[in-house]
């Protein structure tokens, strides 16, 4: 059996992948479990592709090896495609139905990727597709999309939902606690419904 449950959270610099991984880390502390994680800092953050590795019950290094992740949470469709090789065959993906086209695509005249073809290229995985923007607005702030995604993925994560919600409350700014707690619950409900599974 694998000694740790390995989650890769991917997105674009500025989308809040680090906060989402902080919530998972904090939840591990609440449940007295060990945890290791790795994140992107510095130049790579500026609107570039970013990744956070989180290893629940991890005891050694923080890096997840491609092909061995237990769960991939992607805040952008293109990033799901970029990092899908971290999952084994038919691995578990929770993805935001959202696509930001990289500026370099326009500048270099590359083919503009579209949602449908990306979803088709992910279809062999065990996919749940979430409309995080809609649920975040419903929770009270478009900025809570990262917590919506975490909620949507939480059914697959071996941490208790009440622990995760407590961790959300501890990690987000004081003024946004209620919005984010609502975002987590809405995300969790959507995840349980398997909302928007393609």
């Amino acid at each position: 059996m694998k000694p740790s449950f390995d989650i890769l959270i991917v997105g674009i610099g500025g989308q809040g992948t680090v906060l989402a991984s902080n919530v998972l880390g904090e939840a591990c502390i609440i449940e007295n479990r060990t945890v290791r994680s790795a994140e992107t800092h510095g130049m790579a953050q500026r609107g570039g592709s970013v990744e956070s590795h989180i290893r629940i019950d991890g005891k050694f290094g923080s890096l997840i090896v491609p092909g061995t992740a237990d769960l991939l949470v992607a805040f952008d469709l293109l990033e799901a495609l970029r990092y899908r090789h971290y999952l084994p065959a038919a691995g578990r993906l929770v993805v935001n139905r959202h696509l930001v086209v990289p500026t370099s695509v326009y500048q270099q005249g590359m083919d503009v990727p579209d949602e449908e073809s990306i979803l088709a290229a992910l279809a062999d995985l065990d996919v749940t597709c979430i409309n995080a923007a809609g649920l975040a607005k419903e929770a009270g702030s478009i900025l809570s999309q990262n917590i919506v995604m975490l909620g949507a993925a939480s059914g697959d994560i071996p941490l208790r939902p009440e622990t995760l919600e407590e961790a959300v409350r501890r990690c987000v700014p004081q003024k946004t606690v209620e919005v984010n707690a609502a975002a987590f619950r809405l995300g969790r409900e959507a995840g349980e419904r398997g909302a928007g599974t393609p």
Partner: protein
Amino acid sequence: MAIRYLLGNEGIAHACLEANIDFAAGYPGTPSSEVIDVLRVQEERPFTVEWSTNEKVAFENALAAAWCGVRALCTMKHVGLNVAADPLMTSAYTGVTGGFVVLSADDPFAHSSQNEQDTRRYAHFARLPCLDPASVQEAHDMLRDAFDLSEEFGLPVIFRPTTRICHSKGDVDLGEVGTEHRTAAFRRDPKQYVVIPAHTRVLHKVLNEKQPALKERLVELGYNRHTVRGPTAVVASGVAAAYVQEVLPDDVSLAIIGAYPIDEEWLADFVDRHEKVLVVEELDPVVEEAVRQTATKTEVFGKMTGTVPYEGELTPATVAAALQKAGITPTTTFPAAAPVQGVPPRPPILCAGCMHRPTFYAMRKVFRDGIFPSDIGCYTLGLQLGAVDTTICMGASITVGSGIARSGEEHPVVCTIGDSTFLHTGIPGLLNAVYNGADMVVVILDNRITAMTGHQPNPNTGLTATGKESTPISLDAICRSCGVSWVETVDPYDLPVLLDTFKRAKERKGVRVIIAKQPCVITARRTGIRRKAYTVDPERCTGCGACRSFGCPAIAFAGKNATITDLCAGCGVCADICPSGAIGMEGRQ
């Protein structure tokens, strides 16, 4: 006392508080920056903390504090230690009285760096102890104890975490914040602190005499430890030791190296008990060289046998592959998993509304045949805009520019340098260019902050590390006092004026300085500055693509026609670029 989920650098900063730190200085550099960033805002313990103007300055300030008997830390990234190498080498001779820890963070794979140099080489070069943690917890524990070690031997201690320590998180067991405060007192002792030849010859001998006891102590402290289990062994250092432990079978011996210099007798004893040893470490083969020096009949595998890669960072998968190459079966083998081909890249990019973008745009419009030396900062991303021809190290844009200009190369030279980088090591280059009569344009990209490393204040910001107001310096006055007679300050959001300024600079000779001044769009947003977003009038947009070349991430295209996304920060420069007048502020006709 308390277990918390912390970033490696946060754990390191807390260890400083536990160790009764009195003085901290540093220059920002990924992956080291968060240590001072945590220390400068903490409220648990009063002490002196500063962002210095460069690493040499930080080092000398902290060294002097340690000479006064207080506990001092200085922080930098690995290449920063090159800047501080001059005082580093001789500080080993003078020694210290208060504990002095030099944190130099290495960056295997150069995630955010210009090279993959190894700080452990400097430790060897200077004959100073070096601690090399294998985990976030160990980074915390080692740093807490490093001040004691420094005081015990009267030597600066180099602390060398790597990116995967600094920017990893984990559950960290923390101690209590220290409550002791020392009183600084400089004790006059010219034989110690004035390194004239007569003194330094003696000090060199003293340094060498400290080495045997130092090596023994590092073993006693448990930083270098081993377990013998069979005829085959792995020797690993730093974070690579964690990857080894993840895949190492039970019948293979393991030695973990966490401190240098390595005691040769201890190492020889371990190596001699094995038929075969694999050395696993990131960056240079420092441990491997030591193992090879002690091995008499043991077969040694490592970088020098091609078993472990020299470049980049290691992972559990590369370590498992190295084990297999050395004939050791790892507990796990990893599947071959290649990324999907043809996914459009998403490299980091200058933000929407970044002041560097219009400055680069205007520079290239006016100097179509120019040569563009640049420097280290967010603006190195101007490479994507064709605005960066050289980058080598901090401050080198001006010196490389004047060198090209004075080499006989006839194309115009326009170099770019950020405000913090200009203050770091740019000024001597400007002075030199003027003094020696270079013909060039220097553009200071003045965004009022050290942005790329996480928005640290610098002397140009008008705030100290702790948020106190400081005397705002004048870049214009500095340039003029260096002898530059033509200095123009311009708002880069005002494209017509910016273009005109570049044109006027082009008409002149000698060193000309343009200061493009506008706060970083991220700090502006944080301080509450809100600008109205812009939109494209689809009826006027002809799809000419003029805005495409501007490269702003807020400009997207539906077919040929441009649209502006919610990333728009309202700088409005694209409205000046559009030849059809199709772009305007939201809500205006």
